[in-house]
């Protein structure tokens, strides 16, 4: 397919692999955090790790929107879904994420809650228009990429006087999370996370541009390369990071020039700014409370804020004991370091969010990378 296959070309991949192998200093290790789940997915689906030398290692970051949502917010969404007369609209990935006591939206649905899987905020608006007698709540999650459509939906609902539509807003921001990861002290009993550079967000950056990462690169001395989601993008960005480190540079570079500019999409930014504002602080799964890292609905659109329309009760939310999702999301541990991985926690029966989404590190490990050694052995046997 035009403009897709070109970015998955095996010959070019081998050329890039050769360049990375030549330029990576065998005397040192390179730890690169790929921020987005889309990168994680590409690395595993195409076997990128097989093509880079052993001393270049990918550390999986927190950029999976489903994974970083704390259990308490999910519990709140489940409560909203179970509220009389409510239709909860959600992106499909959220359905199977386990909340407290293994409750989930899919279980709530089986128990009678009216939960609709949607692909776009426009679907949620349509459901609200089609069911004026019901309260339709859109469960908004995601980074800067999914935020503009939420803002548009709220503006449309406002313009149409749609009184039965509201948004449970959980949108989070990327640059504060990157700053938090490099800056946060190690948790008790954990080694500090080792990161030499970042494969920066791709689609997020198409909205916010690459300028917002400049403080992190400058202040923390970590190079950032904005990287596309195709496997060749990941490999080229890896080479760019290796070069920066070898040169002692720590800049923001843009590999994804076909989509991302320094300024980003100004129109989308101003739309978001019109409807949403910074929260003082927001809890992330794995990262804890991160100041100025999320958005809420502005007062002038308060009537569309589900948090204000419905009184969700305070609750004792708990993740599964010994689930290592939080450490995996910080890049401190690998999925295989978790006792639950592949034993009690599998995609069929996920204990933590990272096993649910195809962008989650645990699911990617399980689906594509599991028993890598065994698969290598089989391949060698065939060869």
């Amino acid at each position, binding site marked *: 397919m035009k403009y897709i296959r070109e970015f998955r070309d*095996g010959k070019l991949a081998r050329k890039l692999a050769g360049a990375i192998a030549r330029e990576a200093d065998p005397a040192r290790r390179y730890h690169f955090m790929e921020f987005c789940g889309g990168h994680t997915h590409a690395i595993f689906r*195409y076997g990128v790790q097989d093509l880079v030398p052993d001393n270049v290692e990918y550390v999986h970051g927190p950029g999976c929107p489903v994974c970083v949502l704390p259990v308490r917010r999910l519990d709140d969404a489940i409560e909203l879904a179970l509220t009389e007369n409510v239709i909860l609209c959600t992106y499909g990935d959220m359905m199977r994420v386990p909340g407290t006591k293994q409750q989930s939206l899919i279980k709530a649905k089986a128990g009678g809650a009216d939960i609709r899987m*949607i692909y776009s905020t426009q679907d949620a608006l349509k459901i609200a228009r089609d069911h004026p007698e019901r309260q339709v709540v859109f469960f908004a999650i995601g980074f800067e990429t999914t935020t503009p459509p939420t803002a548009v939906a709220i503006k449309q609902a406002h313009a149409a006087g749609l009184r039965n539509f509201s948004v449970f807003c959980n949108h989070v921001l990327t640059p504060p999370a990157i700053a938090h990861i490099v800056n946060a002290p190690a948790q008790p009993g954990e080694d500090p996370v080792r990161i030499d550079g970042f494969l920066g967000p791709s689609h997020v950056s198409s909205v916010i541009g690459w300028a917002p990462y400049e403080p992190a690169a400058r202040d923390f001395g970590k190079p950032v390369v904005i990287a596309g989601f195709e496997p060749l993008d990941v490999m080229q960005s890896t080479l760019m990071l290796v070069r920066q480190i070898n040169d002692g540079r720590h800049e923001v570079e843009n590999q994804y020039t076909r989509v991302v500019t320094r300024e980003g999409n100004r129109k989308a930014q101003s739309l978001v700014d019109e409807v949403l504002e910074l929260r003082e602080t927001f809890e992330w799964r794995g990262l804890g409370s991160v100041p100025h890292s999320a958005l809420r609905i502005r007062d002038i659109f308060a009537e569309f804020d589900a948090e204000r329309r419905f009184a969700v009760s305070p609750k004792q939310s708990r993740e599964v004991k010994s689930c290592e999702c939080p450490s995996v999301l910080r890049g401190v541990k690998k999925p295989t370091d978790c006792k639950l991985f592949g034993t009690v926690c599998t995609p069929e029966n996920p204990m933590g969010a990272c096993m649910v989404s195809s962008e989650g590190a645990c699911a990617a490990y399980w689906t594509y990378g599991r028993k890598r050694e065994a698969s290598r052995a*089989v391949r060698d046997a065939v060869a």
Partner: protein
Amino acid sequence: MTAADNPKKKLAGVVDMTHGGGGRAMSDLIEKLFRRHLSNPALDQGHDAAVLDRPAGRLVLSTDAHVVSPLFFPGGDIGSLAVHGTLNDVAMAGARPLSLTASFILEEGFPLEELELIVKSMAQASREAGVPVVSGDTKVVEKGKGDGVFISTTGLGVLPEGVAISPEAARPGQVVLISGPIGDHGVAILSKRENLEFETEIRSDSAALHDLVAEMINVDPGISVLRDPTRGGLATALNEIANASRIGFVLQEESIPVSPDVQAACELLGLDPLYVANEGKLVCICAAERADELLAVMRAHPNGRGACRIGEVVDDPDCMVIMETEFGGSRVVDWLSGEQLPRIC
């Protein structure tokens, strides 16, 4: 006056509870719709059970429920699908299908006009396949207790002498063939789903494969495994075979046929064509030295034009399906977890 009171009047209106009540309305529905379109000597006997001659050879029996949504989709509908799905299950044992039975669960309020379209389509699929529907049943459930129409079909077939096709029969050194491009059915269904409609030329590949199978067996009666990769797609079918045969597979991504339209739709929707359903494709595992001959026969048949070789069976105690990616790496092709697309067949 309702249609039931006047047997000459064409069926119109909607299904109501009397159509399942065992009275005249039900008898009328059977007469005007089912027997009219599906007519054959066994069905026309009018028994609740069909009386059939006993064929020589081992019998193959398979049953399948169909709940596809939407009921009508590009390339087929629930009626043709209910015929093809069950015929293919019988054919994948290597058998020649002889007859079908069908039971309909109708929801109160379902338009009779649409039901007639479905029954007509079923009749056409059965005629084309040369396999009659010899017995049937109809039940009606209250509005809200069904979703229009559900159809269960059962197929009876007979196995040619010397054929020993089984999911447990794959052995290292054998090769994997596929009869054509994958993912068309799932994507065609998806393109008509509410909230998701998109413009595409993709049609379901829904087709009866027993004729293709018969020609393949003619050339190589020693075929080890046949499987139609329906729900869960090619990936799931191969994982099932790997586990049943206690072997592994190595696939070459570049050799797996996917049409550009299906590839594009999958990119857009975040689906992997390996996991998308097919209703008119088969996977064949055979001896490496028979592969070329089988491929030639498959390619000469209308249902196997796009046939190609996609991988090998290897010795692997972990029973994994590994794919060498076009990109130059390798990955595990795991079972599908959860449901990629619900209610596709």
